């Protein structure tokens, strides 16, 4: 919302020493956020009033004239193409250095002395559109320049002074006052400033109706939707431009002057925050009634929209039907037309929720509806009426009130609250004297009465429509006026009942740090919704997948039941720039099943599990390497993050997985996830071009963190353990797990083979088809002595014999 400082000064005499910066700061700290403060005059630097002394034809151009112009103490020749030039005319002159927009279009340009068709021109005589004043000085034709002859200002006067544009315009953040219906007009902000600076606020005196008995009446059928309605019928008005001063104010705060009748209603709203409306009396048949619309009833709005109304829309009607959408917008039928001579002025209060609903329903929010929906007090009507009547009599001295009707069904009651002063002190951390509280609260319109520890507060009507309703609201009023910055910081005290021990939270953090820091993976964030084609390819369907009612886009309807579709999309995105990378994400997944009351018996929430999923993308020439890289990360996760270890088995192949390269992951026998190569077919469907991708997804809720670090301690070996590599040929189908079990068997403390490790696996020229060469590292040693080399050889030999016998292994030759 924009506010004119000079308008505010109508209601409060702000000290001349107060600068704009300080005022913006104080208003921001105490009341609402001031987003900007512009001195309008800055836009009109080097733009002045000039008086045309004589006009001569341009020698080289039919349409141009050379105007000898008095620009205040000196005369200059200005070339101009205006069609409405005459000698003695006062015009708007942009001197060199002024900033204008050529014909009101494009980027602003700086005026320089220039030759026009061979004639030197000092600056330029401007059209209103060129100096941004077209709304105040509308031109009938494009080539018309501004005629300022009606203004007193002598030649040379800066335009800002001549046209009363020397004003500060404050831009208030609307979001910061959605809860304050009292602030949506200049008077409300003036009240805050009066309170902040301890200055008196000027009153707007109530209007006393002067008309005697009359036939004019207003009927209210829905008194809940319309608790108060004043109608005033006036004769002897006409459609004419409002006085410049009124137009000027309306324009400065961002509205367009239309005609005196419409401008009065807008002016009143901008001043008081109370919307009003003027109907053309001749277009109203019978009397006005405020009621709910009949379902399907028709109404054409001022802006041409044709509505088919709903039964909860509040409408203003005449004998024939709806003439206006209450609190939102007038209808086309009753609007002010050029020949209007009689009007009915409406100053009414409407219930906020209904107005909001209706305005949103027809996507027709207006300045009026946005004020009504914040809940205006019924008493504001009096203030708006008073100001309206004052303006009507000023603008139309011959005007007569021929009808007046005030329907009042309920009034906003002043809210009353009791606040303990001791409580206030404890919450504020400071005692503020009763006198200070009283002075500040009074300036905002609150009445206070002190009895012992109690402060009885009577809230003004304009704050009693929901804004101030509990004692915490009073605390806020006291604190903000005292100034939040004037409270000294106090230290935070607490009692510790013990160290914080949150195993689950710590585990997830350790896993992330393990993956990122130890395993070189990058954490990514993706959205909770999935791209439908990717999700379909990866998940195989949408059974039990939840969807959004209003998705970000039609193709992003489903929300994730697995992290993998989005991980796959992330792989595709990064494949453009990287050939070897690893990513993971930790987030929740959802399913349309297992609804539970986790927290509150009255609600049922769907299944929501916390998962961690990742991808290793690399060359498809080394699937084994990629597989071992991924498996190594998962296998070692438990060891480095202190939780129960994983087991790997093949039980149920994930839909997206390769037919062979897949494993399920288990903890204590329970399946917690999968790890597998993304099937080539799925990879192609989601758009992976060349890379092979190993994926994993694990349910972190099912992981079992240790309560403490559980690594045991082993004594350092007293006698050496020797490493001994053997390479043997096996059938291709023989699995490492079998080889390992055969070598180590059930771990026997007397056995000299302490451990065995996989070194590598080789298929190549020297290896016959259907075979593979596996190199195993044996760890050979005894607990009670250093082995002799013969013993070591013998031990290794016996292992080889065993592998030959049990698994049909052969020594490589």
């Amino acid at each position: 919302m924009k506010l004119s400082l000079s308008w505010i000064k109508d209601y409060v005499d702000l000290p001349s020493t107060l600068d704009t910066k300080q005022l913006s700061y104080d208003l921001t700290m105490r009341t609402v956020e001031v987003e900007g403060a512009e001195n309008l005059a800055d836009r009109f630097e080097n733009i002045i009033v000039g008086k045309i002394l004589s006009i001569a034809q341009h020698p080289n151009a039919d349409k141009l004239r050379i105007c000898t112009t008095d620009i205040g103490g000196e005369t200059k020749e200005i070339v101009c193409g205006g069609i409405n030039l005459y000698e003695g005319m006062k015009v708007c002159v942009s001197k060199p250095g002024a900033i204008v927009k050529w014909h009101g279009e494009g980027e602003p340009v700086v005026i320089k002395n220039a030759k026009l068709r061979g004639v030197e021109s000092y600056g330029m005589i401007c059209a209103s559109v060129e100096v941004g004043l077209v709304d105040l000085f509308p031109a009938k034709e494009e080539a018309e320049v501004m005629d300022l002859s009606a203004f007193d200002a002598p030649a040379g006067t800066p335009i800002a002074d001549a046209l009363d544009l020397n004003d500060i315009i404050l831009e208030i953040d609307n979001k910061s006052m959605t809860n304050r219906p009292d602030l949506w007009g200049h008077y409300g902000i003036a009240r805050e400033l009066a309170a902040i600076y301890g200055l008196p606020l000027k009153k707007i005196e109530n209007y006393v109706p002067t008309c005697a008995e009359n036939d004019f009446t207003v009927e209210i059928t829905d008194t809940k939707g319309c608790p108060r309605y004043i109608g005033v019928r006036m004769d002897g008005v006409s459609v004419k431009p409002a006085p410049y001063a009124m137009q000027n104010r309306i324009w400065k705060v961002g509205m367009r002057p239309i005609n005196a009748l419409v401008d009065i209603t807008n002016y009143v709203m901008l001043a008081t925050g109370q919307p009003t409306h003027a109907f053309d009396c001749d277009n109203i048949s019978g009397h006005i009634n405020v009621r709910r619309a009949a379902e399907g009833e028709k109404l054409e709005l001022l802006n041409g929209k044709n509505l088919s109304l709903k039964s909860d829309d509040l409408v203003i009607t005449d004998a024939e039907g709806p003439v206006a959408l209450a609190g939102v917008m007038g209808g086309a039928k009753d609007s002010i037309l050029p020949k209007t001579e009689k009007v009915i002025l409406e100053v009414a209060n409407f219930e906020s929720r209904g107005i909001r609903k209706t305005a949103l329903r027809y996507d027709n929010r207006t300045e009026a509806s946005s004020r009504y929906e914040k809940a205006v007090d019924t008493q504001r009507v009096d203030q708006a009426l008073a100001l309206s009547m004052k303006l009507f009599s000023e603008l139309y001295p011959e005007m007569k009130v021929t009808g007046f009707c005030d329907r009042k069904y309920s009034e906003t009651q002043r809210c009353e609250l009791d606040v303990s002063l001791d409580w206030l002190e404890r919450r504020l951390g400071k005692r503020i004297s009763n006198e200070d509280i009283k002075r500040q609260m009074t300036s905002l319109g609150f009445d206070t009465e002190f009895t012992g520890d109690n402060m009885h507060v009577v809230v003004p009507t304009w704050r009693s429509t929901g804004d101030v309703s509990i004692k915490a609201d009073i605390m806020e009023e006291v604190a903000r006026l005292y100034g939040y910055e004037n409270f000294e910081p106090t230290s935070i005290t607490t009692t510790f009942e013990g160290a914080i021990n949150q195993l689950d939270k710590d585990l997830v953090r350790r896993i992330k740090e393990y993956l990122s820091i130890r395993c070189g993976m990058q954490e990514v964030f993706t959205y909770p919704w999935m791209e439908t084609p990717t999700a379909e390819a990866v998940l195989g369907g949408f059974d039990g997948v939840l969807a959004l009612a209003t998705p970000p886009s039609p193709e992003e309807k489903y929300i994730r039941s697995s992290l993998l579709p989005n991980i796959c999309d992330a792989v595709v995105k990064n494949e453009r720039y990287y050939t070897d990378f690893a990513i993971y994400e930790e987030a929740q997944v959802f399913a349309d099943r297992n609804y539970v009351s986790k927290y509150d018996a009255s609600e049922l929430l769907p299944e929501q599990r916390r998962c961690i999923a990742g991808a290793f993308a690399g060359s498809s020439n080394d699937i084994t390497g990629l597989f071992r890289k991924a498996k190594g990360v998962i296998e070692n996760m438990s060891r480095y993050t202190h939780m129960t270890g994983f087991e790997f088995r093949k039980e149920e192949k994930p839909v997206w997985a390769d037919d062979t390269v897949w494993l399920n992951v288990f903890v204590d026998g329970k399946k917690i996830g999968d790890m597998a190569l993304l099937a080539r077919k799925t990879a192609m469907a989601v758009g992976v071009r060349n890379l092979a991708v190993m994926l994993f997804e694990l349910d972190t809720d099912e992981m079992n963190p240790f309560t403490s670090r559980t690594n045991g301690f082993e004594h350092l070996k007293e006698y050496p353990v020797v490493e001994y590599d053997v390479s043997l040929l096996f059938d291709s189908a023989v699995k490492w797990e079998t080889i390992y079990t055969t070598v180590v068997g059930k771990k026997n403390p007397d056995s000299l083979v302490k451990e065995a490790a996989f070194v590598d696996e080789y298929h190549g020229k020297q290896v016959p088809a259907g075979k593979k060469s596996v190199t195993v590292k044996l760890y050979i040693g005894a607990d009670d002595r250093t082995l002799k080399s013969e013993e070591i050889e013998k031990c290794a030999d016996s292992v080889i014999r065993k592998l030959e016998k049990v698994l049909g292994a052969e020594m490589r030759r």
Partner: protein
Amino acid sequence: MPLCGINRIMKEKIQALIAEAEDKISSALNDTELQQIKGYLLGKQGKLTDLLKELPKIDVSLRPEMGKAVNIAKDRLTALIEEKRTALQLKAAEVSPDFDVTVPGFTPAEGGLHPITQMCYDLNDAFRSMGFEIFQEDDITTELYGFDKLNFPPNHPARESMDTYWLEGHDKGEACDKLCLRPHLTGGSVRYMQTHKPPYRFVYPGPVYRNETTDARHERAFYQYEALIVDKDFTFTAGKVMIKSILSKVFGRDVPVRMRAGFFPFVEPGFEIDMGCLVCGGKGCSVCKHVGWIEVMPGGTPHPNVLKAAGLDPDEYTGFYVNIGLDRLVMMRYGVDDVRLFHSADLRFLEQFH
């Protein structure tokens, strides 16, 4: 031959041997040569052994003296050889003077936490040091906890489908029937309060979702970080201290903080909390729109209705609440100018924060 004559010859031989040894040892080029020299001098057939063999020829009275002289010579030769060996080893280990110290080092394993996770963990560490617990809760919630319990009026704009992601098939009805992706974290804070005993002191990080048009400053999914203290007679001025210490810890220097009037349904009084602009130091620049302050978080005292919803007596309990937008804080920390990058999963962006 007179005794002294033999004695003198013997001494001369020892001297000559030492001189020869010094010469040979110093000219040895490698360990093998040195080994040969050692054999030549000290071996079984070596020169010193030969001298020892001559001892019996000497008069008995002179033998101890001569024996001693030979042993000194032996020690001397051994020392020279060892000295040379060390010198040769050092020389062998010498790195070429052409070695290029300007070649870049090997990069350790790449990988990192998301910059928002990093900020979240920094805050967790700071809050934990002040005795706060970490709380986490589900992404999908009901209208009851998304709005009703938080003092949102029934016609609040945020409840409309324009702003919240309601779930299909669960977007009709009221309160418990309506499910949505949580639009903020505060509803979860109410759940925490319902299931724990006061006083409370916890933080609650997590993603939230709003149905918005996205641009460089607006996202549909973003990270919030809520901190809540509920205790008897907690003053808002203590909240100011809390915020100041947290921001100073996160930004590594003293950060000016100011609280000003603000309105949010779930707090009363409510504040907009601003921090001094770190780019211009408060003088005013384009980042802070020339005011010297940047709005970082809303905060305030939990609204009595919210405390009531959590089962607490608002006359007895009060507290302090802040809700920090992590995306914005991270943008400020690094000068990131497009919030959408956080959910891009683009490694070219994420790798900058290792």
